[in-house]
């Protein structure tokens, strides 16, 4: 068995028994799956005049410019499209937080339990160890967002008008989940590796997640206020930028992941 797979197996066995970590990974997925359905149900009930909300009208205008056929749809359908599209963006928090949690718990946990020295005394290469740990974080985080998106799609199909799903699971939505999702997971775990080399506990290490959450929140708010609308072009530009950032962050992480550096310089 490849040593990468040996590490992967060990990490996942360990992860399966770390209930708190599993719950903290699943929580954002559950929240961002339920919240949009609550919103599309409650908003028309609580605020029948909400259709005249300035932000919503601006968004309708922006959406209408990009997709003129939306002007012909019922405002309730547009509300569904608007909210569900927004929350596709929020689903990206799932791979960000998931990969970051696993990577930081894995590395800081090894430091806290002093398990790294005997591990590094084996014939494993540090690149194999880093790859094993990275895959152990990136794969479940990515799978989790894909599963969450699958449930999201099923929910929209079951509970929303038929015009909504094709306009949510469109090239932008699919690009965000299947292209940007894995890339932000890798970026998140790469940052997790870097910051874990200095942090003494996983929670401190996870604060680096703000670096990724803030730009995502900025996009969410800008799109909500109708200042900006993600399209396929922006998704591709984002993917290229993330690919470059991933390469930089992983290179820095790999440089920190040397036997002597780990044993003598990590806090």
């Amino acid at each position, binding site marked *: *068995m490849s*040593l990468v797979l*040996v590490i992967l197996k*060990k990490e996942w*066995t*360990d992860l399966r*028994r*770390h209930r708190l970590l599993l719950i903290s990974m699943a929580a954002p997925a559950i929240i961002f799956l339920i919240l949009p359905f609550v919103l599309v149900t409650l908003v028309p009930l609580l605020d029948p005049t909400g259709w005249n909300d300035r932000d919503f009208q601006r968004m309708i205008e922006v959406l209408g410019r990009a997709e003129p056929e939306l002007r012909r749809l019922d405002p309730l359908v547009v509300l569904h499209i608007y909210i569900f599209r927004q929350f596709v963006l929020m689903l990206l928090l799932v791979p960000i937080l998931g990969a970051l949690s696993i990577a930081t718990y894995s590395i800081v946990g090894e430091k806290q*339990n*002093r*398990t*790294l*020295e*005997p*591990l*590094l*005394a*084996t*014939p*494993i290469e540090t690149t194999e160890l880093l790859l094993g740990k990275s895959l152990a974080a990136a794969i479940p985080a990515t799978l989790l967002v894909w599963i969450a998106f699958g449930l999201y799609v099923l929910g929209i199909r079951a509970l929303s008008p038929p015009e909504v799903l094709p306009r949510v699971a469109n090239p932008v939505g699919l690009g965000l989940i299947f292209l940007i999702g894995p890339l932000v997971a890798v970026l998140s775990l790469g940052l997790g590796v870097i910051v874990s080399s200095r942090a003494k506990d996983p929670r401190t290490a996870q604060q680096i997640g703000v670096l990724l959450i803030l730009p995502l929140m900025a996009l969410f708010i800008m799109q909500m206020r109708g200042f900006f609308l993600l399209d396929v072009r922006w998704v591709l530009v984002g993917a290229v930028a993330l690919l470059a950032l991933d390469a930089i962050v992983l290179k820095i992480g790999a440089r920190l992941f040397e*036997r*002597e550096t780990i*044993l*003598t310089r990590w806090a």
Partner: protein
Amino acid sequence: MIATNGLTKVYNGKVAVEALTMEIQPGEIFGLLGPNGAGKTTTVRMLAALIAPTAGEALIGGYRLGEHDAAIRRIVGIVTEAPGLYERLSARENLELYARLYGVADAARQVEKYLRLLDLWDRRDEPVGTFSKGMKQKLALARALVHEPKVLLLDEPTSGLDPQMTRVVREFIADLRGQGRTILLCTHNLDEAERLCDRILVLKTRPIALDTPEALHRRLFGRRIVVTLAEVTEAILDRVRALDFVRDLQQDGRRLRIALADPERENPRLVRALIEAGAAIQFLTEEEHSLEEIYLRLLEEEALVRPTEALSAS
């Protein structure tokens, strides 16, 4: 099995180990003693190919450090100061992980062998987090042995264990000698070193002394006979002083401490002289010094040689 020549490690301008030259023979248990910060753990890490020396060279099992590090890691087993086990994994899973990392062909059989040998088989499927400190230390030993290494590096293997568990671990280490493994034992426990080690090296950044405990004893204290008499008189003292082979005489109440070069040859003459002087001999024994006394004397001498460093260390 292990040979080092001028092995040196410097961290950020601070010397951790300086000019360490030693040879450890196959099947030998070699003790590495020294105060905190003396460079013991750094030495172990260098020999395990975990960190690179700044200068000097080392051969471990015929492999050159820095050139054949992966091969060195395959033939070395290490017990670190902390057991360093995965607490959510079971004892069996911990050992299987390492067996696979070391490329052990029949991992399951090896894991079973060492779990049984160290009396952990009955709790093989329980999470290590539920184990006592002693059980964790035994599991750490099993982990170090699961790939049948020729060289075993043990860094404080009995640290923090209760006397009963200390004995179990110590006896296990003694048994390993019989299997022909070469063992480097770092310890603060001088009694342990005395019981287990064939030779010891006292390290305080650089080597202070290297020899068998007996040879170090002779070198530092010479050989002394302690004679307990019913009564000590001036006549007896004069008679002993007059003996040409007596190197030194000290009186402590009714006990005489007499330094001799060759007690086996000189004792009968000494006893005869004492009786002729009217002494009533109650006991006669060779004075013994513990390894602790030898160790402390060596460190005191080192402090006299390097007073500035001793002052800064204190």
